[in-house]
């Protein structure tokens, strides 16, 4: 009775530990934003959170992130991808204030393209001007 219970407890802890194995990236500049999109790791199947500090990010060329054709592998299962703005310096805290984090293009409407696989996507607390969005899978 005790051994099966301990085994169950051990497995439960492993599952909880895996669920918390999220990747979080604090992004505080335009260059860091482009770098984060460029460095998507196809082997990282955990949930991924991009935290964007409040401020303006200048979008010159398009941003692209792909879990199927660009960087990823269509045969793998990936965790949820979240891109969230409104963070303070160092991403210590987050505010729901609208417009705190803004993606701004001078002209031409460059695109933010995100292609998921079977993973879900959430974009929140992000403002933008002159930027198009293509969300697909």
């Amino acid at each position, binding site marked *: 009775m005790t051994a099966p219970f301990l085994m169950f407890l051990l497995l439960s802890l492993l599952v909880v530990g895996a669920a918390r194995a999220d990747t979080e990236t604090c992004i505080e500049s335009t260059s860091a934003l482009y770098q984060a999109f460029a460095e998507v790791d196809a082997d990282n199947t955990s949930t991924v959170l991009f935290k964007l500090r409040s401020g303006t990010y200048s979008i010159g060329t398009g941003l692209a992130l792909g879990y199927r054709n660009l960087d990823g592998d269509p045969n793998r299962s990936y965790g949820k991808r979240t891109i969230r703005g409104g963070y303070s310096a160092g991403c210590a805290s987050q505010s729901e204030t609208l417009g705190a984090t803004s993606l701004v293009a001078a002209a031409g*409407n460059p695109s933010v393209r995100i292609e*998921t696989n079977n993973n879900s*996507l*959430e974009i929140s*607390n992000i*403002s*933008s*001007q002159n*930027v*198009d969005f293509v969300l697909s899978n």
Partner: protein
Amino acid sequence: MTIRQSRWENTRVLLQSRCHNMAIRNSMITSRTGNPFDHAVIYSPFWDVANPPQSFTVVGSTLRGGTLFIAIDGGDVNPPAASVG
């Protein structure tokens, strides 16, 4: 896929997935300026008989300056009627 608590101005948003539930929540999306016939949001999932598109939801949000355009592409059957509420 969810867009939440966001404000996108002078934009065009293309949502193209039949595998995911799509949602726009508590957001404001304003279409590109200069073209009165432009779309603010285009929802265009591919229709597959075996795997039909999932849900598309707009809640507590505003689309300005352009239309919401829904286009179901592909397949050889007509999709069921949509409900708008």
